C-alpha cells in the first residue's frame, strides 16, 4: 500500500498522522481528516476577510494556516500604488480563488474571474472545512434545499465560510441549518432532516414550497462558489445590494 495524505510510513508499516477516517483505494491508503484548518488547493473558491492593507496588496484570512496575499493586479480595479485602502479595508469580506501555492506555504489568490469579488451585505457563518461537502450536498442538493426553504441567498467557500444574505429571520434559519450539519455531519439522511427542520420552522405560505426538488439543480461555472438563490426570488445573483448591509463573523 502506498501512503497517501494523512499517513506516514516507518519500517514498511503505514500509520495515520491525523485524526480521521480511513480510506483505502488500492494502491493508495489515506486518512481523511475530521478536523483541522482549511488546507488550500489550487482553484478552490474561498471566502476571506481582509486582515491587513499594504501599498500594493491586501492580506486575507481565509481560515488557512497563513494569511493569503491578494495583489492589486489580481483585482478587476485600476489601482495606483497606495490606493489599495480605497477599495478594500480591514474587515471587508471577499470571494477569491486560490491561484498558486508554493512550498514555503505562501497562498496566492486572485479576484479575477466569474463570481469573484467583494461581498456587500449579508453575514458570514463558519463551518468546519471538513463539512463543506455536506453543506453543498450531492450535486448541490443540500444548499438548494436550504435556499428553497428559507428564501436566503447562500454561497459556500471551500474553506468552510458560508455567506448568507436575506432577511434576519431567513439568516437565522440558515444558521440553524448549518449548525445541524456541523453537529450531525456524518449521519445519513441529513438532507431530509434539514429539510423537515426548515419546513417545521417556516411560516405557512412560504415561497417555493411546491417547487419540485430538482427544478434549480444547475451548477454555475466551475470557478464560482456553490452559490444558490431561491428560485422564485428576483435573480439577484450579484453580490451588491443593501447599503445598510452588515458583516458578522460568527460560528
Amino acid at each position, binding site marked *: 500500500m502506498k501512503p497517501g495524505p494523512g499517513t506516514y510510513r516507518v519500517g514498511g508499516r503505514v500509520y495515520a*498522522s491525523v*485524526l480521521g477516517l480511513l480510506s483505502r483505494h488500492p494502491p493508495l491508503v489515506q486518512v481523511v481528516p*475530521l*478536523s*483541522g484548518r482549511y488546507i488550500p488547493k489550487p482553484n478552490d473558491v474561498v471566502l476571506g476577510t481582509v486582515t491587513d492593507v499594504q501599498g500594493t496588496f491586501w492580506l486575507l484570512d481565509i481560515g488557512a494556516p497563513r494569511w493569503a496575499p491578494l495583489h492589486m493586479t489580481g483585482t478587476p480595479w485600476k489601482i495606483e500604488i497606495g490606493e489599495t485602502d480605497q477599495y478594500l479595508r480591514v474587515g471587508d469580506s471577499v470571494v477569491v480563488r486560490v491561484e498558486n501555492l508554493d512550498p514555503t506555504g505562501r497562498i496566492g489568490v486572485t479576484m479575477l474571474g466569474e463570481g469573484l469579488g467583494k461581498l456587500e451585505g449579508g453575514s458570514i457563518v463558519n463551518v468546519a472545512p471538513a463539512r463543506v461537502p455536506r453543506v453543498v450536498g450531492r450535486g448541490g442538493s443540500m444548499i438548494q434545499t436550504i435556499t428553497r426553504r428559507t428564501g436566503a441567498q447562500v454561497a459556500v467557500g471551500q474553506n468552510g465560510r458560508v455567506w448568507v444574505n436575506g432577511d434576519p429571520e431567513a439568516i437565522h434559519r440558515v444558521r440553524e441549518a448549518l449548525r445541524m450539519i456541523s453537529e450531525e455531519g456524518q449521519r445519513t439522511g441529513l438532507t431530509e432532516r434539514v429539510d423537515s427542520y426548515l419546513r417545521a420552522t417556516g411560516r405557512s405560505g412560504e415561497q417555493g414550497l411546491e417547487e419540485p426538488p430538482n427544478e434549480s439543480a444547475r451548477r454555475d461555472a466551475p470557478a464560482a462558489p456553490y452559490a444558490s438563490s431561491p428560485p422564485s426570488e428576483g435573480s439577484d445573483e450579484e453580490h451588491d445590494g443593501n447599503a445598510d448591509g452588515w458583516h458578522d463573523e460568527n460560528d
Partner: protein
Amino acid sequence: MGSVGAKDVPVLLSPEGLRIDGRRVNELRPIKITAGALKHADGSAFVEWGANKVMAAVYGPREVHPRHLQQNTKAVIQCKYNMAAFSVDERKRPGLDRRSQEISKVIAEAFDSVVFAEEFPRTSIDIYIEVLQANAGTRCAGLVAASVALADAGIPMADLLPAVAVGKAGGAIILDLKKEEDNFGEADLPMALVPQSGRLVLLQMEGHMTREELATALDLGVQGCRGIYEVMKQALRDRYAVAPAEASA
C-alpha cells in the same frame, strides 16, 4: 510544591504493599479525558486525573507572533503552561515563574519531536495548558491534555504522547505519584512516551535512585503510558463517534 512543614512524614507504603490512597505500586489514579471541551479553540481537551484538573487548548497552525520567532522550513511550537492561583492549597502567585517556564519548554520540545511541523512552514502551533487543580504530576497531565487537543485540532503528528510520573516512595518504585508521595518520597521521574516507536521524548528526574531502580522505574512508566494511551484514543473516539441515526423528527 507546597510547603513541607514540621509535619510527620506519612506512611507511604503499608506492610501489605498498599499506598496512602490504597493503590498498588503499579496502579494509576483514575483518569478521565474529554476531547473538544472548548468551543473557540482549534482543538482542546480537559483531563481529570486523580485530583488533577487540567485544561489544554491548541490554536493553529497560524501566523507567528512575535514575527521574529518564525522559521522558514517548519512551524514553531509554542507552549504556555500556567497554574491557576487557586490550583494549590496555598495561593499560587499568578504568572510566569521559573518552574512554569521550564515545564512550558520541555513540553514544547516533546511535541517538537512528534508533530510534523515541516508541513506548515512559517506558522505557529500554540498550546495553552491551564492547571485548575494540582495534585502532583501536572506536567504529565498537561502533556496528555495538550496531546489530545493537538489531535482534536487535526494537526498531523507521529503519535499521541502519553505521559506519567514514576518515582520512589516508602522504599518502593511506584507509578503515578500523588502529592504526598511526591513531597515526602525519595524520587520523582516524569516521562512521556511515543508508543509507535517506543522513544521517550520527555524524561526528568528529581531525587535519588540506583541504576537498577531506574531501570525498573522506566519499565513501570512505559507500562503506565500504554494504559493512558488507550484512554486518550478512547477520548478522541468518543468525541467524533457517530451516534446511531434516530428516527427523523
